[in-house]
């Protein structure tokens, strides 16, 4: 808003562009950034202790190697599947294409650790695949090689199978929005479809794909549960262990700083790519995509390719868990208590995050530095693993002399959830406000509404139109979060995620299946919402007015 004029009272404040209306946004930004800042402070100023020596000397190499290897391999897996899949689905027509278009997003519903339980079980030496192989061939396990999920490549495969939709979604958008004209031009100049793809479409879509990939890799780096279950040492795993087994927050903080450097690198890559992707968006009007029909075997091949991706990321692991849950029907894990705790903790986190998201969205109308600061912190904090933020909260609590008793852990957890996930709640509201023309605010003012009344009666209701989606996503994200919950939850307050983790760690997969499935079920809600929105506001359908 162009300079809401205040009589010049304090010139310094004015020069700093300070406005009282900025205070809530500043506060939101601070609340969000304190956990990560305190981790940094702890790493810098608290001694690492003996534990740090031990970790540095014996474990650091494997932590770093595990994280870097997983990131690299997961990136490879995701690119190799998601980009061609997006290309097939947007530019071609083949049997089942409309269904695959949204089926391919479903793997986002299941958190990495859930997929790890299912795949570890399926591919294990005693699992159904290897058993069937041995039964069929009469071999013993040493007569053949079988890919192991309990390895770094296995971890990369499992995480990639659940996170590829990030790449798929951005690639799909890029293909639909920017390359049709260029593609047609290339085709008219005599380039084959494949050559057009390599030489025209892919280079144009590269920034968008890189942005999606960076996002997926941030999630990969943040994973704790899958790495723990599959026994792959990673930095995030190390952070939780340094705190749990050594009782050394400072040592954990130092590990966290290393992880943060990685994540910030990814974050910058994502920002940079997204900026470039934005500048390449040529027109705001969508063109109808004329899809190439794939007939016969080619069409079946395309369908099969998509089916494989969907099966690996969703169908197979979920079916396996359903099977395990049914198999154990004489022993149903009691999840009632965990369900209640999950609802309370995720609800508290979502409520707190929602308030912050609202503040940020409304402040965003002001375009002041405070609003920009709050939004930037929120979107950056999303990239930071829950384990690191939980550690930061623990450092703060320690500094305040508070222990995890009474209401403290609930508040601390809500704080960490909010710190990490506020942006997922804020973005839909920011988008709703951005869609509303600036003239609405001017209209309100011209009708004599004070800034406060304007915020309350115009901006707020508009922001809230994007709120239900935001609140839902917030809630589900909180519910899926494992490491922060493990570290901060009130004692004996097992959530579904914690229960699943505990059962799985004790090799009681049949018992872990039910809570894991419930989490996935909850995760499906926003994913279905997302795919519904995709299929109802499909670019390309917009030309027919």
């Amino acid at each position, binding site marked *: 808003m162009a300079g809401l004029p205040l009589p010049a009272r304090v010139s310094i404040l004015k020069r700093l562009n300070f406005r009282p209306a900025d205070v809530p946004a500043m506060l939101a930004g601070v609340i969000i950034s304190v956990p990560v800042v305190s981790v940094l402070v702890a790493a810098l100023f608290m001694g690492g202790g003996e534990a740090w020596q031990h970790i540095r000397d014996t474990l650091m190499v494997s932590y770093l190697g595990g994280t870097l290897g997983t990131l690299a391999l997961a990136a490879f897996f995701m690119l190799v599947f998601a980009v061609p899949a997006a290309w097939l689905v947007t530019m071609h027509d083949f049997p089942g294409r409309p269904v695959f278009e949204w089926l391919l997003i479903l793997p986002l519903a299941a958190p990495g650790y859930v997929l790890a339980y299912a795949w570890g079980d399926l591919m294990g030496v005693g699992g159904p695949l290897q058993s069937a192989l041995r039964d069929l061939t009469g071999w013993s396990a040493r007569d053949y090689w079988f890919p192991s999920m309990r390895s770094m490549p296995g971890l990369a495969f499992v995480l990639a199978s659940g996170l590829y939709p990030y790449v798929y979604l951005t690639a799909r958008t890029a293909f639909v929005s920017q390359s049709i004209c260029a593609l047609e031009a290339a085709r008219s100049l005599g380039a084959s479809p494949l050559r057009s793809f390599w030489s025209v479409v892919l280079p144009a879509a590269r920034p968008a794909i890189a942005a999606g990939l960076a996002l997926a890799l941030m999630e990969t780096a943040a994973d704790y549960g899958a790495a723990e279950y599959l026994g792959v040492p990673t930095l995030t795993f190390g952070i939780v262990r340094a705190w749990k087994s050594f009782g050394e927050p400072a040592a954990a903080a130092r590990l966290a700083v290393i992880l943060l450097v990685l994540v910030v690198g990814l974050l910058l890559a994502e920002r940079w790519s997204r900026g470039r992707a934005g500048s390449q968006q040529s027109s705001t009007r969508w063109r109808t995509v004329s899809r190439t029909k794939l007939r016969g075997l080619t069409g079946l091949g395309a369908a099969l390719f998509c089916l494989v991706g969907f099966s690996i990321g969703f169908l197979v692991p979920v079916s396996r868990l359903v099977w395990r849950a049914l198999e154990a029907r004489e022993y149903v894990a009691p999840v009632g208590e965990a369900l209640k705790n999950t609802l309370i903790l995720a609800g508290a986190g979502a409520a707190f995050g929602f308030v912050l998201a609202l503040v940020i969205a409304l402040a965003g109308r002001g375009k002041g530095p405070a609003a920009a600061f709050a939004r930037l912190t929120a979107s950056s904090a999303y990239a930071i693993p829950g384990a690191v933020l939980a550690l930061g909260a623990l450092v703060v609590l320690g500094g305040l002399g508070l222990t995890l008793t009474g209401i403290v852990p609930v508040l601390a957890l809500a704080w960490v959830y909010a710190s990490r996930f506020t942006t997922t709640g804020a973005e839909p509201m920011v988008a709703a406000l951005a869609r509303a023309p600036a003239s609405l605010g001017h209209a309100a*003012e011209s009708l*004599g509404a004070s800034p406060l009344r304007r915020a309350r009666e115009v901006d707020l209701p508009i922001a809230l139109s994007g709120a239900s989606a935001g609140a839902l996503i917030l809630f589900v994200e909180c519910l899926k979060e494992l490491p922060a919950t493990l570290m901060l939850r009130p004692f004996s307050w097992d959530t579904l995620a914690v229960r699943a983790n505990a059962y799985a760690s004790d090799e009681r997969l049949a018992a872990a299946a039910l809570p894991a499935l419930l989490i996935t079920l909850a995760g499906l809600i926003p994913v279905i919402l997302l795919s519904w929105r995709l299929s109802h506001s499909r670019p390309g359908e917009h030309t027919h007015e």
Partner: protein
Amino acid sequence: MSDSLSAIGVSRAYHGVRVVDAVSLDLKPGMVTALLGGSGAGKSTLLRLFAGLEPVDEGEIRLGDRVLSSTKTTLPPDKRRIGLIFQDFALFPHLTALQNVAFGLKPLGKEAARAEARGWLGRLGLTERADAYPHELSGGEQQRVAIARALAPKPAAILMDEPFSGLDPALRASVRDEALEAVRAAGIPALLVTHDPVEALEAADHVAVMRGGKVRQEGPAADVYMNPVSADVAASLGPVNRLAAADVPAGLADVADGTELVVRPEGVCLDSSSGVRANVLASQVTGAMTRLVLNTGGQRLVALVPRDQAPKAGEDVGVRLDPALSFIFPSAKP
């Protein structure tokens, strides 16, 4: 009687570029003043200065004797009592038509505000649509709700930013006439920002032509049309033929060196007795009038003639100029 809303030597610069440059303009009560200009002329910025959406860098905005904006202070928009109507209507999407109109009537109290809002909707023929949400209203209905909303709080002035350009062309004239009638009835100063010269001429009482951040000419609509002060002003009020002195075909007009001839298409008349001959290159029916593209002595002239008098393409015709619609100005470039 209401007060005038005046700009007195106001300027506004962005990054050193003076978008509004020492403009003075008086908006008289009961009168619709059209602010006409192309994009980038500074007309929307001037409206924002009037509305208090931006501070002035120089000069003053006054309502009667009261200073609204000066270099020292800017009264916030919500304290000005100046109604605004936007191109996109800016209806609050979460409020019904009635609630939209009642929004500015809050000081009256809830019941009185609703009654008053209902009255305004009735006046604009929207009684039936009171409980509809903006997305359920047609473009014309939305426009009328916006007018009702802006007028309901009895503003001291009303500013309209391209309010009719979003409307279906078929509806535009009738909606516009109805809307401006209501505005005039309020007896307050009204500013209509538009880029459409036809709209400015048809709908406004007073026209101010803006270009390059300055008001180049203002006055009653017909005056400005008939007596433009420059070729540019003439061009911004409608299509013109512009011919440098050297290019004017002999016998058409007496034009001194260093000047140019500006003729409106309807000022180019067909006259078989004229010694100036022209070949009809194209003849296009545009409604009651037919647009002719003529070639006379190698120069292109566009003429607008009644349809029943229009020759066919390829014919030879004689032409003369209507002095009332032909102007001679010093050349823009020597």
